[in-house]
């Protein structure tokens, strides 16, 4: 399998009046052709910021990408200017990204048609007529009924689920190599969530695009992703094939996440819903020890004395950032 994107030791900081927020603290991951990868973590763990850094969409005055490499097709993207033509040429065309809020992610004063065709015209240099036909075609593919009529409507005339479909169409319209979906279904109801994920999986297969799904909901992506990276407080704490992670989680946080997924069909006697105690960490002035320590129920003495460990391998492509061996613990 060819490697498409490799992120090496990415660090992104934010200067706020309360202090320096270390949002991404040395994150590394990679994705190959045709893969579906999941990045999982709770709010504020840095997963969205990581993806935005890959696309260089971080607002630069408060934010700054301080270190790291984002190697795409052999080229380190961070060497390009954030607002320059090279990055613009890659965004939408080679790597596309869709976002969480369908209600606000579309421009309210432009038609759907215009918002689709402008991407096509910019990257594929199509003329008005062909780009419009292609736009209609894509709308059909993502399941918008009466695409030909609705293409001239405005965003506010679509429901949330439909808008997200439009976003997916926009993301895939130029056949990018990678599609990054940042919490694509979080703002939608459960039924629509399922529909959208199915749609995405189908579209990915059809166009041989790789997909990175960023979410806080492990349960949602269980069926779809092949590999998972679990993030906490700006770092990857566990990574591996999804079946390994689900059957044999090697980090207390992952165990916590798995335990807090409600599952249908199990009676109360068999399984309690166990949330992870405590609150997400404050990313300013972090102590050098493991960030999960305050909430960890498996802690040992080493955790409190030593700094947060590096990732160590515990299986086939299965890494964890923990001193303990939590095999078999639940």
């Amino acid at each position, binding site marked *: 399998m060819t490697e498409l994107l490799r992120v090496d030791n990415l660090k992104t900081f934010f200067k*706020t*009046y309360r202090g320096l927020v270390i949002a991404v603290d040395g994150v590394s991951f990679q994705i190959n052709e045709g893969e579906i990868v999941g990045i999982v973590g709770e709010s504020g763990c840095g997963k969205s910021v990581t993806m935005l850094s890959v696309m260089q969409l971080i607002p630069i*005055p408060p934010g700054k990408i301080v270190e790291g490499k984002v190697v795409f097709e052999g080229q380190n993207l961070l060497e390009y200017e954030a607002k320059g033509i090279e990055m613009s040429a890659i965004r939408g065309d080679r790597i596309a990204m869709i976002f969480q809020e369908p209600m606000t992610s579309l421009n309210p004063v432009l038609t759907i048609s215009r918002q689709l065709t402008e991407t096509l015209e910019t990257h594929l240099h199509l003329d008005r007529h062909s780009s419009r036909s292609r736009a209609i075609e894509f709308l059909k593919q993502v399941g918008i009924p009466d695409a030909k009529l609705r293409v001239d409507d405005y965003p506010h005339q679509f429901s949330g689920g439909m808008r997200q479909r439009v976003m997916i169409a926009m993301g895939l319209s130029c056949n990018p190599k990678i599609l990054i979906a940042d919490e694509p279904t979080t703002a939608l109801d459960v039924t629509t969530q399922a529909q959208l994920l199915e749609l995405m999986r189908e579209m990915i297969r059809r166009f041989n695009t790789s997909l990175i799904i960023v979410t806080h909901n492990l349960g949602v992506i269980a069926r779809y992703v092949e590999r998972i990276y679990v993030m906490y407080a700006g770092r990857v704490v566990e990574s591996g094939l999804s079946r390994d992670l689900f059957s044999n989680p090697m980090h207390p946080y992952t165990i916590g996440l798995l335990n807090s997924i409600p599952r249908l069909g199990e009676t109360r006697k068999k399984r309690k819903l166990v949330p992870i105690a405590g609150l997400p960490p404050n990313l300013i002035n972090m102590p050098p020890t493991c960030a999960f320590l305050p909430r960890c129920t498996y802690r040992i003495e080493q955790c409190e004395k030593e700094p947060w460990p590096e990732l160590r391998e515990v299986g086939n492509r299965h890494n964890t950032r923990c001193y303990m061996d939590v095999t078999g613990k639940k």
Partner: protein
Amino acid sequence: MGKNSNIETFTAGLVVETAQIQQKYSETRRIIKVFFGRKLAVVGLAIITLLILTAIFAPWLAPYDPYKLDIVHKLQQPSSKHWLGTDSLGRDVLSRIIYGTRTSLIIGIGAVGMAAVIGESLGLIAGYFGRSVFHIIMRLIDALMAVPMLLTALVIASLLGGGVKNVIIALGISLISGQCRMMCAQVMTIKQNDYILAGRAMGMGNLRMMLFQILPNAFPPLLVMITIGLGATILAEAGLSFLGIGIVPPTPAWGSMVNEGYKYMMSNPVLAFAPGFAIMLTVFGFNMMGDGLRDALDPRLRGAI
């Protein structure tokens, strides 16, 4: 049931209020910090403080009596005796400008105060009750706004006669619509919040809701509006006295001083320039302070620089 649920409601209310107060305390500290972080706002505050002090201590600061005529020494150029020269009746220009501060500030505060009380009460009622009450009040306000502010003040001031009190009323009336509209918009936004719903669920009466829930939350933008309204009022007052309606000589008012100086522009430009500069400085001070307040009180700017 009865007694217990009362206690529970009461306790719940207490908890909510305590949380609000605690939040407000640290909020105040943050607001002050952001406000003083903005240089222009501090400059504005400094200017206004200076002006207020000038108005209060005018008799001690002014070198001469602003009313004292001295025809012999009329129309003198700025000199060491009269820093800004004398006007057509020999009065010291600097003293008249210093005393003019009193006129402007009194009129400004009076007019804005009046407009704020009336306009914001109307806005509160209109925004809170909505529907027909809202429509009636808003149409009246629209009608008031259909006449430009200066014209309204002009006509009312001339009908009532001149003098500080009448000018305050005239300007106040012309300002009501702006204050009312802003307040109404604020109230309608606040109304959407859940704590209003909670209050109603606890059985809060309308008057209490308006006074204790909505008004305190509308207060920050209100403050901004009032501060900026002061700047606008001072400009309007200057315009009125420039036109010869409102405050007339011998009362020292910056606008009428510009009017007088207009005639002597060729020989004594200072007569027209100096009072205008005073107007500018005052309005600038209020506007910068208002801007700074707005930035400091804007909850969306929390955490950003």
